[in-house]
């Protein structure tokens, strides 16, 4: 069970001695929206399928996962990545969290400060002159940055 938060729910249910006779159970996930959840479910199913297909060959699993991840990234908008990270974190889905963190790092690594602030919904909270000082000190790190 990859969604550890969901697993936790089932474990809690069993501990309370509620017989889960019904085949469908509604699990409340108030912090996850349906779109990212759908992507995570697909990711999870794909991951398990690839793992099963390549039971003994770890390298093949990694290779196939990488290919799938590249394809997935083409379909996901960069702005959706933060949603996916939050969802994967809430669900305690380690592999997906790791993947989406890597994807975000890749997406922002050559971007400007302004882009990053917009991406994470942040604002500059520096005192007057503080930011200018930092920018001057580390001017070299701004060279070759992607245009917004």
């Amino acid at each position, binding site marked *: 069970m990859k969604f550890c938060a969901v697993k936790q729910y089932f474990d809690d249910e069993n501990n309370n001695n509620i017989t889960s006779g019904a085949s469908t159970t509604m699990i409340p996930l108030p912090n996850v929206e349906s779109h990212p959840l759908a992507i995570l479910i697909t990711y999870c199913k794909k991951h398990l399928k690839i793992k099963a297909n390549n039971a003994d060959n770890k390298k093949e699993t990694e290779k196939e996962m990488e290919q799938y991840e590249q394809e997935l990234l083409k379909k996901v908008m960069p702005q959706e990545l933060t949603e996916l990270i939050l969802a994967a974190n809430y669900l305690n889905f380690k592999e997906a969290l790791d993947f989406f963190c890597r994807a975000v*790092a890749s997406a922002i690594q050559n971007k400007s400060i302004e882009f990053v602030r917009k991406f*994470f919904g942040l604002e500059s909270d520096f005192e007057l002159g503080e930011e200018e000082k930092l920018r001057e000190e580390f001017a070299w790190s701004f060279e070759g940055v992607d245009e917004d």
Partner: protein
Amino acid sequence: MSHYVPLELINSILPRLPVKALIRFLCVSKEWSALISSSNFTKNQLSHSIETNSNRTLILKETCINLPLQSRFFSVPYSDNDQFGKAVQIYQPLHNWDILDYCHGLVCLLFYKYKEKEDIVIWNPLIRKYRKLPREPIDEPEFSCDSFSRFGFGYDPINDDYKVVRIAEFYEGPVLMDFFEVKVYGLKSQCWKKIEKQLPIKEIWSMQSVSLNGAFHWIVEQDDRLESILAFDLANEKFQLFRKPLNEGMPILDVLGGCLCFMGVVEETYSDFWLMKEYGDESSWTRIYKIEPGAVPWNIDYFKPLLFSKNGKKVLMEEVSLFWYDIEKKRGKMVKNQSFPKRFKTATCIGSLLLLDGDYVIDLKQKKNKRKR
């Protein structure tokens, strides 16, 4: 629409970034600035760099015999699949330094001439910061004599500190005295400390030490004329002696693939490479290869081994330039890269934020331009 991402998740994203981006993102917000410059983050990021072998860079120091004051430094990105990028000139803290040793993205530079005071600098070239060590006098004995110093730079994992060692030997005329002065500088404490213990040896042969597993190593000669390997542990400040794996050839030490590497070199004849597979276990000395005539189209001499290729079948080595030695095929092939200087020495770096609180390496050209404005 962006969602607020809590700092703990930001902390899972940031260590994966190249250090140039991390430096730039110090300007995003106060919170990011505090996070990135924290010592915990530095540790995290370094672990991640080491694990994923990311931000790998070679630092090349041009060796111009004719114009030593104009030796330039270059950085060359080195990818996961053993490909070299373009060499780009970088700014170094002052000129005419030699590379002493390197570790975790730090390069230790030394300027030393016999009978003159030395200058030592620890430098993080990827974030352009450095720290110059304070000059430390040699506590000369009462009678007049000359001294000669040897140096080493390495990491002490027990104290999580980076250290420089200086061993001074003394001469009365041509006669070597039977005592040494050992001092160690710690990057954390930023000061020198004298080691009171005496070395259990007669003479040191290595020009500089080799650092591994929190210890410095030298080829030494003991009283009974036996040549061995001396190890000095930085944490518990103890000396230990190891047997060499062979007695033929000029003995030289290095580090390769995280193991102590011993080379027996006979000029124009062979260069024999052994690794101590289990540190401290003399029985684990294993020959990994021997370069013999025909394997390389140039004179066989001491070639410094730098690193293994990703599949472990080749070794990147330093001659006047760089070459790959294929262990199975027993063939050496020069690395052809037009952007490399003709002759150089190499240090290997990974991305780290160590010395973020150090001094800036000022680009002399930029400084001149500023003054003009």
